[in-house]
């Protein structure tokens, strides 16, 4: 019960800080917009490859915006050494990881929602119920990337070359999920059979399970002693 209280307190604090500054959400949205504008002109998709191109653009926006989001979620903890306070507190490190992951997931999901709307507008897709088919790959991909990036941002936050280290580590490690996400999203947008998505959704689920578990197990060592 106390663990859940601590989880809720950390999440509430992160959301309050974000609502107060709006830095993460605005930055995520602005970066997604910039990436999608560049990609829509670069790819100039024709109707035949529109689903693939829009899915690819969406996931590129998600990866780059996600790196920013995860960094921001942990930045407040590095200011004034607050992460040290959390590390010496009685909260279970796995619960602390879960709270930081939940905050990053919420920030990214809000930005993802905006990115999906921008993709639909820029790539001349239609707003309709078929768009809901995008939800499973996007939600699973966002969860996986949040899990990976939260862990890596905590590691990189303790190194001098932290800003450089995060993309160097996160992007290559996310490649399997990125491929699966693009394939599943393209299948969703092209109106393909559900079976065309399930194989790729399976890869995303496996990725999520792996990195959520790893994060929960390793976070103690990442934030622990100097």
């Amino acid at each position, binding site marked *: 019960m*106390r663990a859940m*209280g*601590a989880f809720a*307190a*950390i999440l509430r*604090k992160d959301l*309050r*800080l974000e609502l*107060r*500054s709006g830095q993460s959400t605005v930055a995520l949205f602005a970066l997604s917009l910039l990436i999608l504008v560049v990609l829509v002109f670069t790819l100039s998709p024709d109707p035949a490859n529109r689903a693939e191109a829009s899915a690819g653009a969406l996931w590129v926006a998600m990866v780059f915006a996600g790196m920013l989001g995860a960094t921001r979620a942990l930045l*407040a903890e590095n*200011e*004034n*050494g*607050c992460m*040290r*306070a*959390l*590390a*010496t*507190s*009685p*909260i*279970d490190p796995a619960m602390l990881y879960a709270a930081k992951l939940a905050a990053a997931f919420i920030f990214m999901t809000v930005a993802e929602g905006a990115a999906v709307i921008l993709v639909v507008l820029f790539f001349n897709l239609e707003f309709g119920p078929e768009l809901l088919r995008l939800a499973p790959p996007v939600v699973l991909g966002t969860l996986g990337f949040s899990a990976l990036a939260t862990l890596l941002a905590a590691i990189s936050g303790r190194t001098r070359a932290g800003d450089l280290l995060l993309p160097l580590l996160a992007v290559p490690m996310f490649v399997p999920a990125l491929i699966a996400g693009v394939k599943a999203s393209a299948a969703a947008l092209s109106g393909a059979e559900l079976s065309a998505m399930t194989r790729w959704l399976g890869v995303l689920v496996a990725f999520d399970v792996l990195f959520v578990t790893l994060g929960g197990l390793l976070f103690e060592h990442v934030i*622990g*002693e*100097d």
Partner: protein
Amino acid sequence: MMTAPVVETHALGKSFGETPVLRDVNLKLYAGRAAILIGGNGAGKSTLLRILAGLGRPTTGRVTIFGEDSLSLSHQNRRRIGMLSHQSWLYPNLTAGENLEFYATLYGVAHPEAVADRWLDRVGLLSFRRERVRAFSRGMEQRLSLARAVLAQPMLLLLDEPFAALDPDGVAIVGGMVREQVERGCAVVMTAHGPTAVEGLELEAYSVVRGRLAPYGGERRGGRLRSIPGR
């Protein structure tokens, strides 16, 4: 029957790479006692406090806190440690009240709002409850940070230069709070650059020179401080 010490270090040593920072440190402190570590910059005082808080691993020797190894402290015993660090450990974009309520919840303190109000009042910051910490002076941050460290009623309080950046009123408030904590049975370890006294409190004083701990003023003076020498 003799009670067990709250803090005990056995031949504690710490090196960063090839550079030794602490050497053969043996410290024992019981409940209701206060120790002060006096030394210049780089003497190893802060490193010792960080190890006592479980934020650093000794290179040699070992540390026991409440009878447990400092690196594998139970959550229950973690809850019994309060620390004031060089950094304030406060969120600049939260108000003073929100910061204390957050830490009170984290430590499972009942009625976080009332507890936050009580400690804000104690450190003279109740009228700043709704002010963001970003707007605080260094001295106000220091007082708020001490309130954060003591709000869960710790039984071991680690204070890294608690009187730094404080005006005379702040020194009186912090000194009074330290004395109250010791009087209720808390063990306090604090650091300072020079001899420092807390009114009405006997301090076990140690000098820290190049990572070595010795009774302050030598064995003859017994390492006790009641008033600031020379004043």
